C-alpha cells in the first residue's frame, strides 16, 4: 500500500470500531481490503459521475429554461471514451482480482495441512497429529495452514470472513484453501452454501493461538493416534496390504513413496499423485490402473467413510518404506494360521 502505515492503522481501527468491515486477522486480509477499497472508489466515482450528469443536465436543460430540444445524433468520440475508460478500469479489476485469487488458492510449500469434513450440519476438523474437533478449529498464528476440504453429503462452503477466505466443500472431491492467521483470537466460521434445514446452525469458532499456546493445545487434545496410524490400521484391516506388499511380484503397485510422484496409467495418461488421486484410486480403482498392472482391485465405494479415506491418504502420504507393511502382513498371515495350529488341541 502506498499510504503511510500510521494512517492505514488509524483507518483500519476506525473502520473496525464502527463495524463496517470485519477485522483483518490473516496475511491475506490487507490485500483483500485494498482491492475492496479500490473497487469502492471506482463505484463511488461511477455513481457520482452518473448522478452529476443527471442532476446537471436536469437543471440546465429542464423545459422551463430550455423549451426546445436541440437534436444531436451522437458522438463517436464520446462513445469511444465511455467504452475505453470503463474497459480499462474493469481490466485493472480483473488483473488485480486474478492475482489475489491465485494467492489465496495457491498454498505455500511450507504450509501444514489440516483436513476438514463437512456434513449436514457440522464441521469436523482432523489434524494429522490426531486432534479431532467439531465446529471448531485451532490454528497457530504465523504459520501457513492448508485446509483440505471434502463434504460427506451436499455442497457446503467453508468461510472465515476475518481471514477473507472461503472455499466450496464439495461431495466426492477434495478442494483446498490456505491462510496464515496473524492475530490470536476467536473468529467466525460460517457455512455459506445453502445445505438444508440447519444451514444457519452450521457455524463454528476458529481459534488462532500463539505458537506456544498452540503447542500446548495440540499436546492436551490429541486422541493418541495420528491420522497416519489410523490409516495404517485400515490399510491392514481392509486387506490392502495383501496386494500392495511392495514386492516386485506383488499384484498391486508399490505404494511407498508414491505420493508426489508421476505415474503412467494403462490408458496412457500421466498423473501426479496427490491427495485427490489417492482418494479416487481407492474409490474408483478401475479408472486409475497403473501401467503394467491388471485391473483386479475392487472398488471401496461405500465401504470407507470420508474420515477413513483421510486416514488412508495421510498414511500413504507418509509411507516411505514397505517394511511395516510386510511385517503386518506376516503377522496377520500367521494369525490366520494360528487356529489350525490350535485345532490340534481342540477338545
Amino acid at each position, binding site marked *: 500500500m502506498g499510504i503511510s502505515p500510521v494512517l492505514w492503522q488509524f483507518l483500519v481501527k476506525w473502520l473496525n470500531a464502527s*463495524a*463496517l468491515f*470485519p477485522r483483518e486477522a490473516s496475511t491475506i486480509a490487507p490485500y*483483500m481490503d485494498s482491492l475492496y477499497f479500490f473497487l469502492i472508489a*471506482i463505484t463511488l466515482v*461511477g*455513481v457520482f459521475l*452518473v*448522478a452529476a450528469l*443527471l442532476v446537471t*443536465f*436536469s437543471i440546465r*436543460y*429542464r*423545459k*422551463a429554461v*430550455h*423549451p*426546445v*430540444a436541440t*437534436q*444531436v*445524433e*451522437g458522438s463517436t468520440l464520446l*462513445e469511444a471514451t*465511455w*467504452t475505453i475508460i*470503463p*474497459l480499462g478500469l*474493469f481490466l485493472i*479489476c*480483473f488483473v*488485480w*482480482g*486474478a492475482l489475489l*485469487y491465485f*494467492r489465496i488458492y495457491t498454498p505455500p510449500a511450507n504450509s501444514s495441512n489440516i483436513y476438514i469434513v463437512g456434513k*449436514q450440519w457440522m464441521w469436523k476438523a482432523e489434524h494429522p497429529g490426531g486432534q479431532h474437533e467439531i465446529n471448531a478449529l485451532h490454528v497457530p498464528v504465523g504459520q501457513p495452514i492448508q485446509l483440505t476440504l471434502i463434504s460427506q453429503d*451436499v*455442497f457446503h462452503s467453508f*468461510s472465515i*470472513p*476475518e481471514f477473507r*477466505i*472461503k472455499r*466450496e466443500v*464439495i*461431495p*466426492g*472431491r477434495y478442494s483446498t484453501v490456505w491462510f496464515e492467521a496473524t492475530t490470536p483470537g476467536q473468529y*467466525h466460521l*460460517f457455512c*455459506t*452454501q*445453502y445445505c*438444508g*434445514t440447519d*444451514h*444457519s*446452525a452450521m457455524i463454528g469458532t476458529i481459534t488462532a493461538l500463539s505458537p506456544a499456546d498452540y503447542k500446548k493445545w495440540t499436546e492436551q487434545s490429541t486422541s493418541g493416534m495420528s491420522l497416519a496410524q489410523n490409516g495404517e490400521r485400515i490399510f491392514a484391516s481392509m486387506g490392502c496390504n495383501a496386494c500392495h506388499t511392495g514386492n516386485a511380484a506383488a499384484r498391486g503397485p508399490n505404494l511407498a513413496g508414491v505420493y508426489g510422484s508421476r505415474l503412467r496409467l494403462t490408458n496412457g495418461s500421466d498423473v501426479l499423485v496427490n491427495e485427490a488421486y489417492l482418494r479416487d484410486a481407492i474409490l474408483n480403482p478401475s479408472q486409475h490402473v497403473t501401467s503394467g498392472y491388471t485391473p483386479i482391485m475392487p472398488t471401496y465405494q461405500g465401504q470407507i467413510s470420508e474420515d477413513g479415506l483421510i486416514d488412508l491418504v495421510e498414511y500413504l502420504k507418509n509411507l516411505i518404506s514397505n517394511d511395516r507393511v510386510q511385517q503386518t502382513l506376516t503377522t496377520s498371515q500367521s494369525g490366520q494360521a494360528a487356529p489350525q495350529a490350535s485345532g490340534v488341541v481342540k477338545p
Partner: protein
Amino acid sequence: MSAPSPTILNLPDQSTAQLPRRNFINAEHGLLSWLFTSDHKRIAILYLISITFFFFIGGAFAGLIRLELLTPQPDLVSSDTYNKFFTMHGIIMIFLFLVPSVPATLGNFLIPMMIGARDLAFPKINLLSWYLYVIGGTLTLTALVLGGVDTGWTFTAPLSTHYLNTHVITTASAIFVAGFSSIFTGLNFIVTIHRMRCPGMTWFRMPLFVWAHYAASILMVLGTPVVAIALVLVILERLVGIGVFDPTKGGDPLLFQHLFWFYSHPAVYIMILPGMGVISEVVSTFSRKRIFGYTAVAFSSVAIALFGFFVWEHHMFIMGVSNYSALIFSLLTMLVAVPSAIKIFNWCFTLQQGSITFETPMLYAFGFMGLFTIGGLTGVFLGSLGMDIQLTETYFIVAHFHFVMVGGMLMAFLAGVHFWWPKMTGRMYPESLSKLAAVVTFIGFILTFMPQFVLGYLGMPRRYHAYPPEFQVLNVLSTAGATILGIGYLMPMIYLAWSLKYGAIAGDNPWQATGLEWQTQSPPLTENFIEIPIMDHEAYDYDWLEHKTADEVTHVG
C-alpha cells in the same frame, strides 16, 4: 406564447373527451372472450394481472423473511419454514415475475404496435404461452399449498436430488412448464420482428425497446431449454436415480451448476434487457430528444446478449473449477459490463440539450439509472476473482442482484407501466400520488439493500435463518427499508386500479411521444391500426411529430 409549462402532458379537453367507442377492451365481452382471445393486447393484460398476483405473493414472502431477520435468534418460524420462504420468494419472483414481467406484458402489448403490425406472428402460440405460464404458476402454488419446497431457487444438486423430501418434483415441473412459456414468447418476438415490420420500418428505425426485446428473445430461446434439461435431470435423478449428478455413481454434482447457470446467468439479461428498452423510450420522450448514440445502444443490447452466454462460470469461482478457466470467465465478465456502461452514459447524454420534464415514468427511469449503476458496478466486485472469494454466497450477492433486479428491473417495469398506462387503458394515473410512490420506492429500496452490502463484506452468509448478534443493527435497518418499500409497491397497485374508472381521459398521445403506438387511439383498436402505417421517418424524430401535429391541426381546421 407564455412561459413553457413544466409538463409535456397534453390531455384532451376533459369536459368533452371520452374513450374511443370501439377499442380492444370493449370489442368483445365476457370472461371467455378474454380466455380465448388471440389479441396480443388482451393477452398482455392477462399477463399483467397474473404477474401482479404472483408479485404480491413473492413480496409477502420477502416481508416474512425480513420480519424473521429482525432478530438474530430463529424465533418467528422454524428453520425449515424459513428455508421454504426464501425458496418460494426466489422461485416466484424470478420465474413467475421478473422473467415475464416486461416482455410478456409491455413487450406483448407494444412490439406489434411499435413496428406497425396488427398482431404477433403467432397469436395462438402467444395465448398458449400464457396458458403455460398459468399452469406453471398453478403447479408452483400447488407445491406451496402441499407444504412447500426448500431447495432454494437454485435447486443445487445433490441437495435437491438426494437430501430433501419436499415437493421438488412439482416445483421443478412448474418451472419446466413456465420455461416453455418463455421460449414461445421469445420465438414469437423474433419471428414478428423479422417478418412483420411495416413498410419503411428498417432495422435501424425500430425503437430501442424492440431492439432490447430482440436481444432478450434470443437469450430466451437459446438459454431456457438448458435449464429445462437441468431440471428434467433433477427430476429423473430423484425418480429413478440416473446418477448424472451423483458422485457415488460416477456423476458430477458440479455439472448441475454448469447447466443451471448456463441459463440462469443469461436469465439475468432476459430480465434486465427489456427493462433497458423501457428506459430508452422513457428517457427519449421526456427529454424530447432522439436517444444519444442510437446504434451504440442498439448494438450494446446485442453485445450483452452474446457475451451473456459466456460468463456463467463466474457463479462458481470458489467451487474448485480450474484456476485458468476462472481467469477466462472473469475476463469475459468484465467485458459484459462494458455495454451496460455504454447504455448508461448514452441515456445521460440524451438529456443534454434536451427539454426535460419530470413526470412519473422519468422519475422511475432516473431511479433505474442510479440503482442500476450501483448494481452493475458491484457486479464488477464479484467478477473480480479474488474479491469474489470474500463476497460470494454472502449478503453482498443478495444486495447486488436486488439492485440489478429490483432497483433496475422493477423500476423499469414501473416506469413502463406508468408510461404506457394511458395507452393500455385510455386513462391517466394520478400524477402527484405516483410521483410520491416513485420517491418512496427509491428511498425504501436504498434503505433495504445498502446495509446488505456491508453485511456481506462482514461475512453474513445468505439464506441464514439465524445470525450472530453483531449483525443486528444492519438487519433492522434493512427490515425498516423493506417496510417502506412495501408501501411504495402497494401505492401504484391501489391508484392504478382507481384510475381505471376515475382517471382523466388520456387521448391518443398524452406524452407527445414519437412511437407508432402513440399515433393511434388509446386504448387501441383490436387490429391496432385502421390502415398499416408507413414508417417515413427515423425513430425518435420529434420534428416529424411536430409537423404531423401541425398538419392535423390545419387539416381539421
